[in-house]
Structures are given as structure tokens and as C-alpha cells.
């Protein structure tokens, strides 16, 4: 039932016929809606429950009167050439629905369902009204009053004004009295206030304030670990904080001279800090923005969201944090009129789609004591507007029910269970804060609930297992006694039995004992991989001493340092000169050892008073202060590790284990000793062989290796080698560790070696090689976990206060249990810093702080997330950047130094050093290679004038330049100066290290946007007028040089209807039809990937360069394209592909060609959907076309109102598209909506054949689109490939790889 608004009064201050501009606050809402006109996300709504008698007719009369009084409710917004304007209508028809559900048992549910449906219906801004009302009668004296209002015209405070005025008018009318005079101000006043502010000095001052405050553009704390665009809907979970807790929090607030909303903000800051492992937290605070202004009496959209930046540390007290909030909010309030969108734009965050704030804390303490002629009413919010990430809405309705807390989440980021977990923990934290003295440090608070705490500390760590008190060497000796004749070791042509190996090691051990080796002592071993290396290591252990492996490849300086630091009783080397002779360490040189000396020793196991508590080995790792540190690992620790490994993977006597890891890297420990403890054979690779995947594959094959280890990056290389599956027939299991194992590598492994198990292990040297394990399964997705703890080992993921993180929450990984190292050799302070008291175990137990960021999965596995510091892993080797930096800074002439690992090309990691000062970079690098192991020497050293600094003076690592490597390895030299210049320009634009004169632009990763840049650069450098088309025709420096040199005019403009992306090649060409913008450059990557023999032509819209009238229909357009295609290829077979609108065109062209009797071999549709899917949806207006143009150029639309603004943005942003010229850009703005219209009017014919379809499978706003809608228009089948991306991402490199894999295969079959 809709009632007519009859008894209106003419409101004062009505806007003129010209309408009013939007306020800045409204503009934000308008653009958000314009981006997605069908989205209901901007609908806000609330429901008032009125428990008592109500007269619906009087209520309707009251609503009519309030509607007549409130400008906001009578507004509609129209896009005009001057930008959007709002018109306040003198009268509107009251959109009121009255429904009586008294007769229904489920009346309430029906009402709720009605409200939900209504809330999901978008408002039409141009026609209005921008609100809807409903009144439900769900019981004799029970009423629900529903209001839904577009956010453009209302905010939370505005609702309270409307509700109170409605109650006031209703109450008066019931009494038969004239309601008190209208108290609302007008919309015109709001606009006037806004205009005055935006031209005031305060505006400029506020802008300056915010720009300075956030100049360093802090990282946004995201509870989901990532961001997403706001969706059309949101998820909500509602809870009520018990009245007693609410009261106690109010008391805390009162004692701290704060308000309870400020206390809740502080609590949320604490929660966010702990849940995101960040101490710098930026919350979003919605401000009502009305105090001190006439807008207090104007229902409208005034509120603003402002960033509240807080520092949360475990040392601070809650009282201090609350005070920080109080002062922060006070500061914020002084600049509260400056818009959130403007701050983001000023900081340059819009273009990067970066956020400014984490969770929003939206506290609505508005007075809702409503009285409808004596009947009380309770208000309940149904929607508070779009949710970017997570919004915590807190309502105090002063009804004695405690605080209501709604957690609203963006569905792209949060499942219901996620929201529930965050909310439960937040409430748990509030309880804790209410019950705790606010003057104690925040470290006493944790965010995990009791159940979560028990889960992550106890349940996930139930690893207790009895192990005998043995050593690393004992089980090897007993095994040798049990299988003396079995093969223990194979190296090249040499093979030793257990008895032979044991005897040799025993003799040498006795000799070492004679030199002082024994339990608690150290013996260094600097022997390349060989039989002698194994014998030496065993001998040291047998003597009772711990071994100190020294990589003979290490520079002398480092070896000297380690020998001086560790002071071993002696050092074993294979030959003279291996170790610095000037040190104090006695050397045992194997090549000079008289055989008689060893022969004199007994071949039986030597006696030694060795216990599991004695050290087994000392391995040096990189040290952040510039000094490497020795990690001391006990026999008990490594024995536990090897016993667990045998239990988990069951090595048998017929197993053969590859030993290829350098002895200075602790993975080698299990390679050396695990097989010898179990009666298996050790296959030793040649020195240096571990770097050669071809050699390794051959060795694995020839020696029938069953078990081996790879660092993931090496595994990746290994798997790409030829015939891995053929050469590794005997492999049973492969272990990975040393760095994060990419899922792609695990999947490639599963494909190449389907019958071989792949185990991912994790652990630092400080915890006896590995402490966690995960077995990869085919079909698993997402990051590969580092898994569950091994025997007698506990993993803790802890927050900054060393409180446990619940599953899913990132924190620092701590390790505890039997495998912990004793500590760092001679470094008690460092040991005490990294090995700390374990608060979850018996007193005296320690835990090791790894510096790794990690999180638990719900299933009790740990996922590795990165580092908390500057330690990096490069090809599995652990490097402290601080050590590299110290070495750089130590060179003469260097005044400042910095090092980092870059990955400028995917998968290609490089260590790069940066220095300031007078030093010569090649000298610096050469010096470092004399000091540091090979893996720690930077691939490049760059000299800078100064380090790039962020606005707050910190080193801005992101701004450090990419190293440029010169000199093509295989390419020929440039033949002429012109070629040479072009080669340089190619390299510059592509950011590629090496370009040869015959390398093609698009094969080197060139995109259409880069093409424009290259052409521009060539114009600047050579003064030559080139078109993009000439780059497509002559894509290499050599061919371009020839073309430029010949003075031949540049042919084939890049905007012509037929764009030869690759004109050469013998196969039938592929025609690729432009998407909505009319340009087909997006298919350049297709041409590059389909190979040199497959011609590709882009088909582009007419009129990009001239004023040719745009086509009336797709049919007309397609017929034109058929003529153009026939000019290239008069007769079939034809191959067609199209993305988006281009897909519809391809289908239409295919139908026309078939009707003409031609053969169409291939019709490939890239996420294109037929006309009837679009027909019912309104076509976009120019606003959307402008958005589309901006998106093509990589910009998100902000406040660009018209074409001029858009062109200005493109020019300002240096966009290559701006180089297109205003005419073309203007035409694109016409072409986009013309396509949208034609697409909706199009009637499809039927294509006789199969369709190859590619779906952009990421969730999309247009969730009604389905490829099945093609069925009526296709007589054959529809083969689909889902790609994990959005529609606009479909032609990006990664997706193109997948698309072209399928296409190549398909085209190849067609060619046969």
C-alpha cells in the first residue's frame, strides 16, 4: 500500500530549479554508486520495534509530515554536464508499505525477509526517492517500523533526528495537538557550509595536517591479511556485551577521564595490533562531524571517517593506550571536516588502491529514547553502509540492554566463522579489560579465548614421545656391528662396507683423541665432499668431540675468524694450504698423514665418556651485526631429530640416500648420519655437484638413489630438466627445506614424479635441523604449510606480548623442546636474547625465538609467512643483511651501506648492495668476494648519491634502484649506432637486463602500455615519428632500425581497423576482436605467446582516429569486420577470438562467415556473455565510460567528473594513454556506451561448432552472468577453462600463459 503525500507544507529554503551541488561527503557516496549503479551497498537501514498500541493512519500522517520537513528525503541526484546535482522536490509520494502479519505465526520472519529483500534493492538516484518506509504489524501491539535510506542523503546521526522527530509528531497528532514547529535545517545550509569550508583557510590547514601526519603512508593493519574492494553486501554478526561488563567499562572510562567509545577504540586497537602483529595501528573512526555546527539539526550525510593512528606495545598500560586515544581523537576532531577520500588522494593511495585505515570502530551513542505517545521503541540498525574491510559497530541505545556490537565484514575477506572468531575474541578481550586494573601493562592481555589457547599450546603440541638416552654416533656404531658387510658409502668408483668405514673412522678417531679430541671439545673439518669427509666427521664424533664443518670454498678471512672464534683442538684438512696457516689451530693434513700413524691405531670403537648432553656439532650461521655465530647442538637434540625421522619415513637397508648438501649447512647432518644409523647406503656427490641439476639427475639414476633433499629453488630448476621422471625411477621420497616451498613447485613435482613423496620440513640450525614437517598431497592448494611439530617439540606462535595467537593470526614462531640448541658458542648475551624462558612449560625450560612470522591453521599445521627482521634466505642459504651491510660499510670510501634481496623478475632473486661515498663499486664487490662466502656476495653493488628516504626520514627500500646488468650473453652486437640506441631504449622501457638487436618487444614482456612509452621515448631520442603499428610490424631493434633508416613512412597506424599484431607466419591467422573500448592492443601478449608461425590480427573499432559515425548495431559492425577480415584472408578456414564485447563480436562474425559458406575452425570466447544476459540491466552512462577509460590506463576513478577531468588525470599521471590524443580518447568515451547499448539490443544467430570458453572465475559483482547462456546460440559443445582472476585481469601475463597453453594445443591440432 502506498499512500499519497497530500498535506505537505512548502519547506523553507528549498533549492532553486538549478538544484544544488553535492557536498564533498555526498560526492564520495555518489561516485561509489556510479562505479556500480546496480549495487545496493549504499542502502542504509534500521528497524524500530514498537511494543505497544500504534495508530497506523496517524503514523503515516506523521511520516508524511516528517518527509515534508526533511529535505534529505525528497532529494534525487542527476548527473549533469556540470557534475552531479541534487534536486529537492517540493513533494514526494511517500514510499510506505504497510503490512499486517498478525494472522501469521511467522509474521516476524516474514517481516524480516521483506526487509532483507528490500535492502538488497538498489535505489535509482536519478528518479528517487532515495528512501523507503515500511510498517509491519506482527502482533496485536507489536509493530516494526523499517526505514531504508540511501547513504548519499543520511548518516547514523541523521537517522536519530528522523526517528525522534517522527515520534514527536506522532505523539502530538495522537493527542490531537499541532506538533511543535519543525526544527530541521535545510540541505542548502549543508551545501553552503561545505562550500564555505572548502574555500576556507581551515581547509588548507587541515589538508596540510593530514598530509604531514600520514606522509610515511603506514601499512594498514588488515585482520584478513589482505584487502579487497567493497562488495555489494556485507556479513554481520551481532553480539551483546553483558550489561555488567558494559557498566564496568564505563567505570574504567570514567576513572581514566575518557568516554566509553574511546575505551572501545583502545580495545580494538589492542586487538588489531595483536591480531595483525603490528605495533603501529591505524583505525578508521567515523565522526558524526556535527558538534559546533548547525548541521546538528539537519538530517543528511555529514559523517566522515578519519584515521586514528596509535602505537600499541605490551609495555604500555591500558590507561596509557586510552589516553593516546583520547588525545588522538581530540587531535582528529580539530581537522575532522577534511574528507577521508581527500586524505587518501593527497597521499597518492587512490592510484595504488591502497587503504589508509584498518578496521573501523563506529560508535553510535545517539540518543534513542523514543516515545510514541507513551509507547517505547527500540532501534536496531540493519545496514550501516558499505564495508571495505571490517567495521565494528557499537550501539548504545540507552535501553539498559548493554552495548550491542555488530561485526560487519566484507564477504570477500571474511566468512561467517571468521567474523564470529573476531567477535568472540573481542568480547573476551573486553571482559578482560573490564576486570583488570588499567594501570598494569598490556602484556597481561591476550586475544586468544581459553579454548583457543588450549588448542594452540596443548593440543597442537602433543608430541611427547619416549626416546632412549643415546647419541648421534652410538646408533651408527651398533648398526655397523649388525651389518658389517652392507654397503655404507658410495663415492664415484669407491664403495665402503659398514665394517670398512667403521674401522677407518675408528683409527682416525683414536688419532684425534691423541691430539686432545674428546667430549666437550671441538674439531674443525675442512674437507671437500669425499670419502675422507665422511670418515673425518665420523672420527670426530667417535672421539667424543663435536665437529665444526668449515666449507673449504669459504674465503680465508672467514675461515680465520671461525677458527679463532671456536678454538678447536685441531682442524682436519685434505691438503696443505686449505686453511690459513698463520692461526693458532694445529692442522691435521690428511694428504701428509703417514699411513703408519693410522695403521698403528686400533680399528675398534674408541672409548669416550660421551653423554647426550655433550655437543655433537657446531655450525656457523650469518650474524646480523656482521659476525657469524656458531650454533652448538647437542647429541640428545640431533638424536631426537633422527629418531623421529626414522619413525616418520622408515628408511630401510635397501634405501640409498644422496649426500649433496655442503657440510656447513645443517641439512647435511641427516644426509650424513641417518642412512648410517639405519643400514642404508650413503651416495656422495662430487664437490660442486650440488649446483648441477643435470649431474644430479644422472647420479640419482646411476646410483639408484631413493632419498634426497632439495632446496625448493633448486628443486624447481631440477624439475625443469630433461626427463626427470625417466631418470629418477628409483626415487621414493624427496625432502625440501631451507626456504618457503612454493605450491607451484610442489605441483610441478607431483606432475613430474607422481609416485614420489614430497615432504616439506622446517627448522633453524638452532633447533637441530628441522622441527616441523608436512607431506605434500596432489590437489592441495594455497601455501604449503611447514606443518606439525616433530617428537618432543612444541611450536608456539606468539604475539608481541608473548601471548599465544589463535589459529589464523600471524605471530612470531617460537620453538621449544628437546631439539633446541645449547646456544651460541662464546656468545652468552646473544644466547640469552634468542633462547628465552618458556612461559608455557615447567620452570627452566627454554624457547627459541626464530624471527619467523607464522600462523596456525585450524588443522594444527603452521604456515610460514616471512621474517620479522632483515634475515633473508637466498637459494636456501640463511643471510643476515646486517652482515652484508657491515661488510660493505667496512670498505674504504664507503660512507653508508644497505643490502637487500630483489626479485625484479619473478623467481629471479638477487642480492644487491647499495653504498654511498667515493668507493668504486666493482672494487667493493671484489673485496666482499674475498671476505664473504659466495652466496653472501652481492650480485651487484650500486653507488648512490644518497639513500632514498621516506618522508619521515627512514630508508625507503622500495625506492632503491633496480640494478642494470649489461652485455648480452648470446646476442650479437648491435650493427649500427641506431640499432644500439634502440637496444638501449628497449632495455630501458622493458626494464630487462639484456636485449639483443633481434629480440622482439612483445616476447620480452612488452605490453601495449609499454609500447606507447617506447614509441614516445624513440620520438624523444631520435626525433622519429613512429606509430604503435610500426612497432607491431617491426618488433625488434634491428627491424625498427631498418625501417627508421630507410626513411620509409610508418605504415599501418595502430588505431586502424585491422591491426597486424603478427603478420608473418604460415598458419591460418587468428583474428582477435576488440573489447568495449574499441582497441585491440590488449592481444599483443597473445601474439607473443602463440609463437612466430601463428599470425595474429587485432580488429579495432572504426572511428578511433576520425569522425566516422559509430555503428548502429553489432550486426552492422560485424558485417563490416567480415569485409575487413576477408581483405586479409579471402576465404576460410577462419580462427576467431574475443574478450568481453569482443567475444560477442567474434560469435556474430563467426555466424556471418558460416552463413557465407565459410569454415570457422575456432571460436574462442574470453569471459564474454550473450546479449540477453545484459538486456535487463541498465546500460552504463558516460560516468561508466569514463571509469572504463581510466581503468584502461590503470587508474581508479576518484573525483573526475567529466571528460576534461579524465584527460587531465591521464596527462598528470603520465599515462601512455594520454599520448593517444584527445580525439581518440573522446571517441573511446563514446564507443564504450555505444557498445553497451548495441550489446543489449543484439539478437544472436546460431554458430555451428564448438566454443572454447575462458572464464574469469573470481567472484564478480555481476553474479548473474553465466556462460551457459550461450547454449541456445551454439550448436556444438562449450569447453571451459576457469582462471582465477577478475574480468579485467584476464589478459594479464599469468592468465595469458594459461590461455595460450590451451590455445596453442588447440591450434596445433587444427594444423594437423
Amino acid at each position: 500500500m502506498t499512500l499519497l503525500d497530500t498535506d505537505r507544507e512548502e519547506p523553507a529554503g528549498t533549492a532553486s530549479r538549478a538544484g544544488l551541488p553535492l557536498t564533498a561527503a555526498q560526492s564520495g557516496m555518489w561516485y561509489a554508486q556510479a562505479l556500480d549503479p546496480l549495487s545496493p551497498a549504499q542502502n542504509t537501514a534500521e528497524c524500530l520495534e514498537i511494543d505497544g498500541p500504534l495508530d497506523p493512519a496517524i503514523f503515516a500522517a506523521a511520516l508524511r509530515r516528517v518527509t515534508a520537513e526533511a529535505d534529505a528525503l525528497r532529494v534525487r541526484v542527476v548527473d549533469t554536464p556540470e557534475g552531479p546535482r541534487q534536486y529537492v522536490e517540493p513533494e514526494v509520494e511517500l514510499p510506505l508499505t504497510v503490512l499486517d502479519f498478525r494472522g501469521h505465526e511467522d509474521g516476524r520472519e516474514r517481516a524480516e525477509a521483506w526487509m532483507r529483500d528490500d535492502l538488497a534493492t538498489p535505489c535509482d538516484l536519478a528518479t528517487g526517492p532515495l528512501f523507503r518506509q515500511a510498517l509491519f504489524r506482527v502482533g496485536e501491539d507489536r509493530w516494526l517500523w523499517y526505514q531504508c535510506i540511501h547513504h548519499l542523503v543520511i548518516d547514523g546521526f541523521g537517522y536519530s533526528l528522523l526517528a525522534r522527530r517522527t515520534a514527536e509528531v506522532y505523539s502530538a497528532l495522537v493527542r490531537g495537538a499541532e506538533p511543535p514547529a519543525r526544527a530541521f535545517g535545510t540541505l542548502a545550509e549543508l551545501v553552503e557550509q561545505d562550500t564555505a569550508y572548502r574555500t576556507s583557510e581551515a581547509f588548507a590547514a587541515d589538508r596540510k595536517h593530514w598530509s604531514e601526519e600520514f606522509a610515511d603512508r603506514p601499512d594498514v593493519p588488515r585482520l584478513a591479511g589482505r584487502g579487497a574492494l567493497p562488495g555489494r553486501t556485507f556479513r554481520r554478526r551481532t553480539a551483546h556485551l553483558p550489561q555488567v561488563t558494559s557498566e564496568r567499562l564505563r567505570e574504567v572510562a570514567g576513572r581514566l577521564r575518557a568516554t566509553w567509545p574511546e575505551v572501545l577504540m583502545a580495545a580494538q586497537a589492542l586487538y588489531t595490533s595483536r591480531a595483525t602483529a603490528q605495533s603501529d595501528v591505524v583505525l578508521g573512526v567515523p565522526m558524526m562531524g556535527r558538534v559546533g555546527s548547525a548541521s546538528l539539526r539537519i538530517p543528511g550525510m555529514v559523517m566522515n571517517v578519519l584515521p586514528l593512528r596509535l602505537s600499541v606495545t605490551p609495555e604500555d598500560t591500558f590507561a596509557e593506550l586510552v589516553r593516546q586515544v583520547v588525545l588522538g581523537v581530540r587531535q582528529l576532531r580539530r581537522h575532522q571536516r577534511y574528507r577521508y577520500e581527500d586524505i587518501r588522494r593527497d597521499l597518492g593511495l587512490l592510484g595504488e588502491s591502497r587503504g589508509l585505515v584498518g578496521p573501523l570502530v563506529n560508535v553510535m551513542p545517539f540518543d534513542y529514547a523514543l516515545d510514541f505517545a507513551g509507547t517505547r521503541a527500540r532501534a536496531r540498525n540493519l545496514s550501516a553502509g558499505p564495508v571495505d574491510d571490517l567495521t565494528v559497530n557499537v550501539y548504545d541505545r540507552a535501553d539498559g540492554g548493554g552495548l550491542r556490537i555488530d561485526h560487519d565484514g566484507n564477504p570477500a575477506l571474511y566468512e561467517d566463522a571468521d567474523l564470529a572468531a573476531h567477535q568472540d575474541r573481542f568480547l573476551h578481550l573486553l571482559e578482560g579489560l573490564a576486570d583488570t586494573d588499567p594501570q598494569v601493562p598490556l602484556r597481561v592481555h591476550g586475544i586468544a579465548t581459553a579454548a583457543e589457547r588450549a588448542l594452540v599450546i596443548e593440543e597442537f603440541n602433543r608430541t611427547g614421545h619416549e626416546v632412549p638416552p643415546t647419541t648421534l654416533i652410538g646408533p651408527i656404531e651398533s648398526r655397523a656391528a649388525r651389518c658389517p658387510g652392507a654397503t655404507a658409502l658410495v663415492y664415484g668408483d669407491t664403495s665402503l662396507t659398514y665394517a670398512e668405514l667403521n674401522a677407518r673412522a675408528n683409527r682416525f678417531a683414536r688419532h684425534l683423541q691423541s691430539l686432545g679430541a674428546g667430549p666437550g671439545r671441538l674439531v674443525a673439518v675442512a674437507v671437500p665432499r669425499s670419502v675422507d669427509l665422511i670418515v673425518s666427521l665420523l672420527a670426530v664424533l667417535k672421539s667424543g668431540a663435536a665437529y665444526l664443518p668449515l666449507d673449504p670454498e669459504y674465503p680465508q678471512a672467514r675461515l680465520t675468524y671461525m677458527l679463532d672464534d671456536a678454538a678447536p683442538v685441531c682442524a682436519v684438512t685434505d691438503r696443505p694450504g686449505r686453511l690459513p696457516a698463520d692461526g693458532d689451530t694445529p692442522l691435521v693434513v690428511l694428504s701428509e698423514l703417514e699411513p703408519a700413524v693410522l695403521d698403528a691405531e686400533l680399528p675398534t670403537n674408541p672409548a669416550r665418556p660421551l653423554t647426550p648432553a655433550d655437543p655433537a656439532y657446531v655450525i656457523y650461521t650469518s650474524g646480523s651485526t656482521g659476525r657469524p655465530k656458531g650454533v652448538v647442538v647437542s647429541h640428545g637434540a640431533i638424536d631426537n631429530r633422527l629418531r623421529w625421522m626414522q619413525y616418520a619415513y622408515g628408511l630401510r637397508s635397501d634405501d640409498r640416500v644422496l649426500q649433496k648438501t655442503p657440510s656447513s649447512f645443517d641439512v647435511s647432518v641427516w644426509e650424513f648420519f641417518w642412512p648410517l644409523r639405519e643400514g642404508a647406503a650413503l651416495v656422495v656427490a662430487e664437490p660442486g655437484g650440488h649446483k648441477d641439476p643435470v649431474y644430479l639427475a644422472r647420479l640419482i639414476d646411476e646410483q639408484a638413489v631413493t632419498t634426497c633433499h632439495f632446496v625448493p629453488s633448486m628443486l624447481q630448476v631440477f624439475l625443469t630438466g630433461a626427463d626427470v621422471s625417466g631418470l629418477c625411477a628409483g626415487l621414493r621420497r624427496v625432502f625440501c627445506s631451507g626456504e618457503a616451498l612454493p605450491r607451484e613447485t610442489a605441483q610441478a613435482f607431483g606432475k613430474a614424479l607422481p609416485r614420489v613423496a614430497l615432504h616439506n620440513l622446517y627448522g633453524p640450525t638452532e633447533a637441530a635441523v628441522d622441527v616441523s614437517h608436512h607431506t605434500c598431497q596432489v590437489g592441495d592448494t594455497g601455501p604449503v604449510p611447514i606443518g606439525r611439530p616433530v617428537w618432543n617439540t612444541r611450536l608456539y606462535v606468539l604475539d608481541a606480548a608473548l601471548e599465544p595467537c589463535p589459529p589464523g593470526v600471524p605471530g612470531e614462531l617460537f620453538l621449544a623442546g628437546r631439539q633446541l640448541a645449547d646456544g651460541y658458542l662464546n656468545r652468552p648475551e646473544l644466547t640469552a636474547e634468542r633462547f628465552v624462558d618458556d612461559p608455557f612449560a615447567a620452570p627452566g625450560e627454554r624457547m627459541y625465538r626464530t624471527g619467523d612470522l607464522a600462523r596456525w591453521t585450524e588443522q594444527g599445521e603452521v604456515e610460514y609467512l616471512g621474517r620479522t627482521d632483515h634475515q633473508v634466505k637466498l637459494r636456501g642459504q640463511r643471510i643476515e643483511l646486517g652482515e652484508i651491510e657491515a661488510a660493505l660499510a667496512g670498505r674504504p670510501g664507503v660512507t653508508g651501506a644497505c643490502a637487500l634481496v630483489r626479485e625484479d623478475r619473478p623467481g629471479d632473486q638477487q642480492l644487491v648492495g647499495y653504498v654511498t661515498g667515493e668507493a668504486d663499486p666493482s672494487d667493493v664487490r671484489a673485496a666482499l668476494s674475498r671476505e664473504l662466502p659466495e652466496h653472501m656476495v652481492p650480485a651487484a653493488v650500486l653507488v648512490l648519491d644518497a639513500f632514498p628516504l621516506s618522508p619521515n626520514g627512514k630508508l625507503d627500500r622500495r625506492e632503491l634502484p633496480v640494478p642494470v646488468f649489461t652485455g648480452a650473453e648470446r646476442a650479437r652486437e648491435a650493427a649500427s649506432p641506431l640499432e644500439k640506441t634502440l637496444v638501449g631504449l628497449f632495455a630501458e622501457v622493458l626494464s630487462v637486463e639484456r636485449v639483443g638487436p633481434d629480440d622482439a618487444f612483445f616476447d620480452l614482456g612488452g605490453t601495449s602500455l609499454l609500447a606507447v612509452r617506447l614509441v614516445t621515448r624513440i620520438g624523444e631520442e631520435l626525433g622519429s615519428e613512429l606509430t604503435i603499428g610500426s612497432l607491431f610490424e617491426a618488433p625488434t631493434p634491428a627491424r625498427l632500425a631498418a625501417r627508421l633508416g630507410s626513411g620509409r613512412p610508418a605504415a599501418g597506424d595502430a588505431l586502424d581497423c585491422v591491426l597486424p599484431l603478427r603478420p608473418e607466419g604460415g598458419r591460418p591467422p587468428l583474428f582477435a576482436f576488440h573489447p568495449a573500448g574499441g582497441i585491440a592492443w590488449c592481444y599483443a601478449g597473445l601474439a607473443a605467446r602463440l609463437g612466430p608461425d601463428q599470425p595474429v590480427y587485432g580488429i579495432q573499432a572504426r572511428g578511433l582516429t576520425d569522425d566516422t559515425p559509430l555503428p548502429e548495431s553489432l550486426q552492422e559492425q560485424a558485417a563490416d569486420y567480415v569485409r575487413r577480415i576477408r581483405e586479409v584472408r579471402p576465404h576460410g578456414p577462419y580462427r576467431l577470438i574475443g574478450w568481453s564485447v569482443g567475444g560477442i563480436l567474434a560469435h556474430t562474425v563467426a555466424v556471418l562467415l558460416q552463413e557465407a559458406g565459410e569454415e570457422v575452425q575456432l571460436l574462442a570466447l574470453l569471459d564474454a556473455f550473450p546479449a540477453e544476459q545484459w538486456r535487463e540491466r541498465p546500460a552504463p552512462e558516460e560516468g561508466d565510460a569514463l571509469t572504463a577509460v581510466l581503468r584502461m590506463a590503470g587508474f581508479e576513478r576518484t573525483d573526475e567528473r567529466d571528460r576534461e577531468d579524465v584527460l587531465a588525470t591521464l596527462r598528470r599521471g603520465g599515462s601512455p594513454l594520454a599520448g593517444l590524443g584527445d580525439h581518440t580518447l573522446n571517441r573511446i568515451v563514446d564507443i564504450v556506451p555505444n557498445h553497451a547499448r548495441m550489446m543489449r539490443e543484439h539478437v544472436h544467430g546460431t554458430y555451428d561448432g564448438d566454443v572454447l570458453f575462458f572464464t574469469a572465475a573470481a567472484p564478480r559483482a555481476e553474479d548473474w552472468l553465466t556462460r551457459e547462456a550461450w547454449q541456445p546460440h551454439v550448436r556444438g559443445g562449450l569447453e571451459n577453462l576457469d582462471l582465477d582472476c577478475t574480468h579485467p585481469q584476464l589478459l594479464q601475463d599469468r592468465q595469458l600463459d594459461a590461455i595460450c597453453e590451451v590455445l596453442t594445443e588447440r591450434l596445433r591440432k587444427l594444423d594437423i
Partner: protein
Amino acid sequence: MALTLEQIRADVADALGEDPAEIPFDENLLDYGLDSVRIMALLEGWRRDHAVSADFADLAEQPAIEAWAPMLGVAVS
């Protein structure tokens, strides 16, 4: 008991956790950290203890002690 200017200032200072001497009579208290929740709390207290009848919007529209005085029944000399 009737409100006085000094009492208003003392109450405002208390709500802000500041020294009363820091709170001016004639300046916009928004800049000193006064917000809607504090105004409501102050108003509640004054209604209870001093039978004040002003409403929230009256106070919030002009957040300065001098402007409040007449609404809160305090004579300004």
C-alpha cells in the same frame, strides 16, 4: 543548587582530564576535545544535579562555556 561558570568549567575540565585553568570561557571547546558523548554526559549530570532543562542540540551547536551559560541558567556578568 544553581550552576556557576566556575562549576561548568570544572566539570568540563574533569570530563577532558585537563586542569580547569586550561579551559577558556570563550573558545570553541571542540578544539579542547569536547565531543558529543562528553556533552551528553555533562548534560545528564547537570540535569540531575542542577535541574537544567537545555537539550543536547542547544549545547552541541555552540560548544563554549559563555554560550552555554544562559541556557544552563547562569548569569554572565
